[in-house]
């Protein structure tokens, strides 16, 4: 389980080809190609406005984004034909950059509804409140939380860091095949960052994969990516190993911008 050579052996999980997408009529993605196999962690880095979050939202199925060309295959199926809730039930999870507050609904109720939606889809029996709480205890420990967070309304009055931890709690509870973390590391203090990174590492399995969208190098000191991609002006312009991330940390993004935009 060292990570080496896994890229050759894992199953194809996500295959993005020539993806173009617009938001409010503006083209943000301009031909993204990306292949993610099971067992892998991919980091997608890039300057502000390069299209990182757009890519994450397109994978999640955000209605404000329109795919104008290209394809996304998830486990060989057309992901773009699936509604957001169908993607979730099929094992795709998007950790939001800006998690939404749901007033009046407790975290426990919300989490159980999400788990049961997925269980129902798989033909499994839905969990009652008591069984669910038992299963939850362990996951809570992972992110260093006590029960008190379960009886609070979802993200309502949570600090920025608490909201991000809550996304990771959902990740731990839902156990997706493909997790997309959209700048989950931004706005976290060092302890929270470590907890988040350690949880992601613990949840790593040969049959799942993680796409980590990030602006900063620092989370990669705690999570070992198999591949690092640089997104610039809506395209992946460079891919490499972890050393690429380090190079970006030292040299910034300017040296790597797409030649076409420089010329």
């Amino acid at each position, binding site marked *: 389980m060292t990570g080496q050579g896994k890229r050759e052996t894992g199953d194809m999980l996500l295959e993005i080809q020539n993806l173009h997408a617009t938001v409010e009529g503006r083209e943000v993605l301009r031909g993204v190609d990306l292949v993610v196999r099971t067992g892998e962690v991919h980091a997608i880095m890039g300057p502000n406005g390069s299209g990182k979050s757009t890519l994450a939202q397109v994978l999640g199925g955000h209605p404000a984004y329109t795919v104008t060309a290209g394809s996304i295959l998830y486990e060989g199926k057309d992901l773009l034909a699936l509604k957001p*809730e169908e993607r*979730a039930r099929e094992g795709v999870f998007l950790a939001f950059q800006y998690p939404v507050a749901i007033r*009046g609904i407790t975290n426990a109720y919300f989490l159980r509804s*999400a788990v049961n939606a997925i269980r129902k889809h798989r033909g499994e029996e839905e969990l009652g409140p008591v069984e669910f709480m038992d299963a939850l205890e362990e996951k809570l420990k992972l992110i260093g939380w006590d029960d008190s967070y379960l009886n609070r309304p979802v993200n309502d009055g949570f600090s920025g860091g608490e909201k991000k931890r809550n996304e990771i709690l959902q990740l731990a509870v839902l156990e997706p095949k493909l997790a997309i973390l959209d700048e989950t590391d931004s706005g976290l203090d060092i302890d929270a960052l470590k907890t988040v990174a350690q949880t992601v590492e613990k949840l790593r399995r040969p049959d799942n994969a993680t796409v980590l969208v990030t602006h900063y190098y620092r989370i990669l000191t705690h999570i070992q990516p198999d591949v690092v991609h640089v997104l610039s002006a809506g395209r992946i312009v460079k891919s490499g190993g972890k050393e690429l991330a380090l190079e970006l940390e030292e040299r910034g993004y300017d040296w790597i911008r797409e030649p076409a935009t420089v010329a």
Partner: protein
Amino acid sequence: MTEHYVRDFQAFASNGAAGAPAWLREIREGAIARFAELGFPTMKQEEWRFTSVAPIAETRFTLASAARSPLPARAEIERLTLAAGPRLVFADGRYVPELSSFAGLPDGVYAGSLAAALKAGPSGALARAHLARHAHWRDSAFAALNTAFLADGAFVHVPAGCVLAQPLEVVFVATDGGSDEPKVAHPRGLIVVERGAQAAVVETYTSLGDRVHWTNAVSEVVVGEGARVEYYRVQREGRRAYHVATTQSRQERDSFLGLHAVTVGGTLARHDITTVLDGTGAELILNGLYVLGGSQHADHHTVIDHARAHCASHEFFNGVLAERAHGVFNGRIIVRPGAQRTDSKQTNNNLLLSTEARADSQPQLEIYADDVKCTHGSTVGPLDPTALYYLQSRGLSPETARSLLTYGFAAEILGRMQRADLRERCDRLVRAELA
């Protein structure tokens, strides 16, 4: 349009109500005169600019008389009540001892007919000291009309230091009146919780059947020094009912009042809530919810009067409006001169579930002291599409996501009810309305 009420009053005063004490007769005479003077409000008046009471003014309502209509069955009452403990039942404003029960009430507590209390005993003196002293009938035609026809009502007296373990429920039921003629009842409540006592009191307004009727209610709640009161008011009358109400509370020093108002019934409802924080260190939670559909209209006008220093008030009103429903909220906060260190927060959020639903929200702050913290905010809008997407991205269907968000909007208010048993019952009522 006021004349026939004046004529009805003359008949009322010379008949069954003639046995009342002289001081009460005097109040009534003053109140009917004031009603005739004020007349029904019109939309030209600032306080009524979103609510027309023309349907009430133009209908010939005659005074309901429980004596002439069959009593509701006990099972029917049980179905309409919120709490399982002791209860007082009033049919068209008249006390019904056969349907009331007192099991579990501690000694020294008076819970029963106001008319009976006024006849004798120490409770009578207390009732006299408070009745019609708090609700401002001189300023309101509806409160004046209620006071003019004041014959009976619910009187609850919890003496100093006494703790009620179970909630006490007062049920005001509008019967079917025994005829098709539109009837009006003027329910009256007086709740006095003395120094250091604790109580939870529920007032439930409900209708038997689905006929047109008008309820014109007034309740006064007095919270003594250091007392803690949870007061729940649930209006679940029929969809053809007219409901106008005044709730008036007064708090003494270091007291706590949680006032929870839930409105789901009526075709036209207007509820004026006026609270006075009249002793230092008093705390108020004013917590309201209206869930409306069809062509229901509900107007809540609240006043929080910070008369003394170091008091805190937290007001939260949420409205869920479907179909062609119209919700009105007007929240006035007054900070009197000298009411320093007042801490007051007001929020009114309205959820519009259809393009035809409408909400009007108006805060009014009147601050006459300088060292105070007052905030207010209001929202009117549909479900947040980002929140819907967030829930969908966790596997929930759009329908489930919508109903969860809508329920959450209501549950936010229910969550502030401190009594779990009553919260649970209100929750069930609200879920049924949302279904």
